[in-house]
């Protein structure tokens, strides 16, 4: 296949294009609470043709086997980088942030599937339930009765409130935190929600601050962990790599045109 250099360069163009999409998505979500940036994993595609010609090598050279030509590059997938975003003080009573690993659990309608999120910008529904900005209920549900004042959320997730005529605060429930062996394996389904996959492993649900789970901080929100400078550098890199690969396409194209015209 004499034109396969074209196809090799094409794989390079496609991979850089996918990378650009991921970078664009990271930048677009820079203001999304609890968003985790994705990193693209490139991998070399398999080689073709194989003639054994192994020889003694020095440290600087390793002898490849005969004429084996690479077929390019592929995007293996994306890894979501789970580093902590910055915690911003909002002063809002129902804003909670996780300081450390873990996720809040939300019931996603219509079938009550559990979605995991680190965006803790909760509000109260008309029925007094603690819900996400989409109006989805937390799991386990937290109900705030009529007339409750000054809701307190402790670092271990205990939710309590003051009621008129009572000195002691009443306990309304406890927020639970889910942790995963491999949180990077969770699948994003949009709206800040992630769902469990075979790659993430099963959820390990428990109290905040135990078994490696993070603590809950009331009145704070976790921002995205996207670093603008880093993304822009990546963007320039991807752009240049794309240009170089497209230059390769035109070079091979010229070679073939030349052969067509000359021979």
């Amino acid at each position, binding site marked *: 296949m004499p034109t396969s250099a074209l196809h090799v360069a094409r794989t390079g163009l496609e991979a850089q294009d996918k990378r650009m999409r991921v970078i664009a998505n990271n930048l677009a979500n820079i203001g999304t609470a609890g968003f985790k940036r994705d990193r693209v994993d*490139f991998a070399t595609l398999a080689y073709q043709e194989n003639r054994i010609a192994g020889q003694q090598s020095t440290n600087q050279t*390793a002898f*490849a*086997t005969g004429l084996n030509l690479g077929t390019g590059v592929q995007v293996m997938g994306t890894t979501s980088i789970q580093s902590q975003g910055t915690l911003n003080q909002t002063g809002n009573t129902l804003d909670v942030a996780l300081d450390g690993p873990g996720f809040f659990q939300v019931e996603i309608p219509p079938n009550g599937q559990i979605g995991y999120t680190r965006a803790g910008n909760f509000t109260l529904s008309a029925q007094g339930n603690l819900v996400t900005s989409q109006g989805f209920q937390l799991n386990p549900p937290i109900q705030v009765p009529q007339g409750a004042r000054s809701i307190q959320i402790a670092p271990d997730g205990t939710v309590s409130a003051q009621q008129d005529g009572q000195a002691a605060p009443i306990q309304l429930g406890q927020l639970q935190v889910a942790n995963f062996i491999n949180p990077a394996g969770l699948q994003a389904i949009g709206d800040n929600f992630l769902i469990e996959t075979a790659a993430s492993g099963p959820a390990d649900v428990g109290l905040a601050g135990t078994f490696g789970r993070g603590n809950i901080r009331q009145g704070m929100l976790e921002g995205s962990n996207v670093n603008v400078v880093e993304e822009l550098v990546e963007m320039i890199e991807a752009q240049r790599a794309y240009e170089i690969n497209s*230059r390769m396409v035109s070079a091979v194209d010229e070679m073939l045109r*030349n052969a067509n015209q000359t021979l």
Partner: protein
Amino acid sequence: MDRLIYIALTGMDAAMNRQRMTANNLANANTPGFRQEVFSVTPSTIKDPATDMRSLEARAPARGWVRNTDMSTGSVNPTGQPLDIAVKGEALIAFQGPDGGEVYSRRGDLRVAPSGVLENGEGLPVMGETGVPITVPAGFAINIAQDGTVLGRDPAAPDLPAAPIDRIKLASAEGSPLAKGIDSFLKVPGGGVLPNDPTATVTPGALEQSNVNTSATLVEMIEAQRAFEMRARIIQTAGELDESSSSLLSLR
């Protein structure tokens, strides 16, 4: 017609193969730890042994091979990811290849698979010094020390210091043959493993990029392109010579 066109054809073929290799190097310019390939073209001459030293061989078909892998170090970029490692010096990280044998790579973007196995971005399990892939116990938070030791912190005992799980096998390729196989991984030809290098160290939180020098590779690309065109021109000239010699002998 002279054999000239066949000589030129071998050269065209070698130039196109060189271009394919260059395209592959460029396509992998952003693949972490990628080691670029080196092309070499050798003339294969047939000489008369009796006149070996004095004969001038005018015809030497070219044979182009991907002959070497350039093992020089790529640039190291800090990423801040605790499980990214860049190997210092010339040691190689040992992985379990797709066929179960040991393969070597400088690619250190590590992560914990759902099974708990430590693997790199290509999905290859990392070999430990104990000779088996490193498995992280469920729920353990891990970090990697400078000597390649994987330290795990038991979530059930948060007060205890992190305990070593295993050390990543960092192999020395000093004096051993090494070849890039058809699956794109470096391995010992004919099977076998490289010895462990206890002195090798890594930089955690950094990633080694490919060692493809894009500007040099672009120059190579233009070279291959022009060489191809020159050989096409030789074939054209040979055709013209052939025509003129036939017209000399034409009975008109």
